[in-house]
């Protein structure tokens, strides 16, 4: 019987036969993740479960990335509790301070996740690792505590939606545009309780970092996971990061039982933005091009990797950020930051008048390091534009790719690089 990629990966981790969508299966976990917001609750639940030890100290990852550098006394205290737990349990992969980066950029980069893995994380954007062909999904802290204690979890096998991209990629179109196009098409609950499986010639040609960007936003369509097949690009990415090359092929079977197939031809498409206040409110940039902007954020687990920094620098080189805009660039991990330094990208950002900040989730969730005041508007390479997400309830966020965000910073209004 033909199988979806979802069914195949889950089968690798379960002793039960994965036979149909909707079936509930017990699965072994490759990795369990939590951050400075969600780990404190997970640790509390872990204690209440009267668990003594984590199931495997090498398979728990704690990343103190959301409010780093600690934004106030309470958030600093939350990190203290996580650090104490990491020491007590002798957790191998604990990231804080200078070792810390935005979790979903950090884990793939450090080679901690790979093809065919089953990962749960107390963060909704855990689905990012689908870009590497891992079944990865977000859960709440208590499910994570259970995972930390038992090394397994139950999962309902989600029906899968196939998404195909074909055609010729226009110059300024990026992975962010591809995923926003889909969310605009199917809506924020278009893939509720389902998995998205991506494919087609455009996806075959897409570098792994772009796939991570797309998988990252699967949750914005309500999906449990967003999966990419494991191919030569995935293999090369793994080897570069010190992981053994996967010795298996991983792709959906021909004739896999998809619930629905959505197809796009990208030829001639222009970059898009998701307008306030939903990621599904997607419009071509030119339709909203006169909208003034006061803040631009380039970074996050969606678009803070080195390829994103290079894209932004390409647009900002020899240009100036509009005087009415604060443009904040946050490379997602220390390695990305250092690479930006080596390549001279930081100088380009500084010359353009950007603020270059630390590796933090900060402004994406309205935490710190770039909060919007009443009536302010941002263009951000982040993943959510819910009302008040980045600050005041009267502020607005437009989601966009790094090239659109950079062009908007230069022109002081929502704009694509074609308008420069």
């Amino acid at each position, binding site marked *: 019987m033909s199988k979806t990629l979802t069914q195949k990966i889950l089968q690798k981790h379960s002793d039960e036969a994965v036979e149909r969508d909707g079936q*509930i299966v017990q699965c072994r976990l490759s990795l369990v993740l939590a951050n400075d*917001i*969600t780990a*404190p*609750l997970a640790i*509390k*639940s872990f204690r*209440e*479960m*009267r*668990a003594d030890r984590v199931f495997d100290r090498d398979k728990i990852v704690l990343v103190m990335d*959301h*409010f780093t550098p600690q934004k*106030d006394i*309470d*958030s600093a205290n*939350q990190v203290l509790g996580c650090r104490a737990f990491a020491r007590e349990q002798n957790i191998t992969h604990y990231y804080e301070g200078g070792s810390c980066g935005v979790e979903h950029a950090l884990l793939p980069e450090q080679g901690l996740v790979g093809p065919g893995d089953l990962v749960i*994380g*107390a*963060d*909704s954007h*855990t689905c990012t690792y689908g870009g590497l062909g891992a079944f990865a999904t*977000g*859960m*709440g*802290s*208590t*499910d994570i*505590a*259970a995972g930390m*204690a*038992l090394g397994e979890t*139950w999962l*309902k096998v989600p029906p899968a939606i196939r998404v195909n991209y074909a055609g010729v990629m226009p110059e300024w179109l990026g992975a962010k545009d591809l995923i926003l196009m889909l969310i605009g098409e199917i809506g*924020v*609950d278009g893939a*509720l*309780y389902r998995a998205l499986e991506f494919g087609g010639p455009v996806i075959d040609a897409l570098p792994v970092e772009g796939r991570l960007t797309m998988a990252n936003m699967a*949750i914005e369509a*309500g999906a*449990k996971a967003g999966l990419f097949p494991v191919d030569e690009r995935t293999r090369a990415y793994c080897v570069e990061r010190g992981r053994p090359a996967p010795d298996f092929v991983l792709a959906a079977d021909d004739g896999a039982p998809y619930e629905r197939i959505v197809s796009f031809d990208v030829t001639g498409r222009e970059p898009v933005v998701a307008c306030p206040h*939903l990621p599904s409110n997607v419009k071509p940039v030119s339709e909203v091009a006169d909208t003034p902007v006061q803040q631009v954020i380039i970074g996050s687990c969606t678009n803070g990797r080195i390829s994103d920094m290079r894209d932004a620098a390409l647009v900002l080189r020899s240009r100036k950020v509009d005087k009415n805009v604060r443009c904040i660039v946050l490379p997602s991990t220390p390695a990305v930051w250092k690479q930006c330094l080596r390549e001279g990208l930081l100088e380009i950002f500084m010359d353009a008048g950007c603020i270059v900040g630390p590796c933090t989730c900060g402004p994406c*969730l*309205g*935490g710190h390091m770039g909060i919007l005041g009443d009536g302010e508007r941002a263009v951000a390479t982040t993943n*959510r534009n*819910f*009302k*008040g*997400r980045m600050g005041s*309830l009267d502020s607005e966020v437009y989601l966009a790719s790094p090239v659109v965000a950079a062009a908007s910073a230069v022109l002081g209004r929502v704009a694509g690089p074609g308008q420069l």
Partner: protein
Amino acid sequence: MNYKGKAHRVGDHIDTDAIIPARFLVTTDAVKLGENCFAGLEPGWVKRVRKGDILVAGRNFGCGSSREHAPIAILGAGMPVVIAHSFARIFYRNAFNMGLPLMEAGDETANIQDGDELEIVAREGRIRDLTRGFDIVCPPLPESMSAVLNAGGLVGHVRKRLGKA
């Protein structure tokens, strides 16, 4: 469990940032989180709630982040059960794990108006709108969720598996 209380209606696609904005996630305390419940929808929203009142939402309630603080904030605000057209999946799992039962009532949810007096007979999956005089019967809970609820939430469930009940 049966519940009786006044309905508080919220709209479609209410996200976890609306339920409890991230700036309040510096605590795990239910009462403190409850004080800011729905601060991302409207400042002071929670002031309308009396203990035992029932939240009624539209489509895809609880979309967005995985923060378990969202169901905790709703419980902390004094609302013991949520009715919605549909729920986002992470929120769905979190709510049951935290002991907040959810009722997926589909299209009929729209018939419940803000301020209606509701009575819920959980065992039957029945919602009674006492103000307007109609009943909605929700589909039974998935097996996996009843197992968690029967063990008194996920903490109890795991404690049992670890042999520490």
